[in-house]
């Protein structure tokens, strides 16, 4: 039951291997990768930044909550920080359980709570040269960088 922030690229096969358990009939994995678009804009790269000490503390709580709520055998989550190129792995969650329902539900809960609660921030770099911190648009001057452009016409 672990949660970790990693400045190094993630290796999903090695991460999954750490959860192998002969009692486990089911393994569910989630990968969040850098996709080439967001809300209609072409994305070139992402930058993730974390308040690592608190992120690992809050992440460990999230994994422990999932283990208390669902009958799982093991669970882990690792979130990458730094600059990521298109297609790179940003976050990985793996869960093992005897039966599949618990692994699916716990994996989903861990990624949902991680996105909602863990102090990690994402800056998108767009193909048009602009960039912006996601969820940080306001009515102030910083809003311009993250606003969705009007429909093409």
């Amino acid at each position, binding site marked *: 039951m672990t949660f970790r922030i990693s400045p190094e690229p993630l290796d999903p096969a090695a991460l999954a291997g750490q959860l192998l358990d002969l009692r486990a009939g089911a393994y569910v994995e989630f990968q969040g990768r850098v996709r080439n678009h967001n809300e209609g804009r072409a994305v070139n790269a992402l930058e993730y930044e974390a308040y690592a000490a608190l992120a690992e503390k809050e992440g460990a709580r999230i994994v422990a909550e999932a283990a208390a709520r669902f009958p799982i055998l093991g669970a882990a989550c690792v979130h990458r920080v730094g600059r990521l190129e298109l297609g790179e792995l940003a976050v990985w969650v793996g869960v093992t359980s005897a039966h599949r329902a618990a692994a699916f539900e716990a994996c989903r809960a861990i990624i949902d709570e991680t*996105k909602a609660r863990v102090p990690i921030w994402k800056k998108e770099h767009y193909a048009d040269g602009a960039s912006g911190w996601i969820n*940080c648009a*306001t009515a102030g001057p*910083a809003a311009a960088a993250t606003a969705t452009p009007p429909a093409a016409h």
Partner: protein
Amino acid sequence: MTTVTLHYFALLREQRGRSSESLTTGAATAGELYDELARRHGFTLPVTHVRVAINGEFAAWDTTLRTGDELVFIPPVAGG
């Protein structure tokens, strides 16, 4: 007056122009300190969109500041 350490991340780091600083303030609570710094540095995030951590744990905005506290203002998160 209390002397506290601040660490900045993401949008607030960029708007402050640095990652951390030590400062002496007359603000009594974490919330008063955010208001003071928002005015001084032009932070665009309203306090309602920000959380605060004190000494490595999430804390309430009305927490009284004490000399030696480490504060982090937490912009809206966006992991994953």
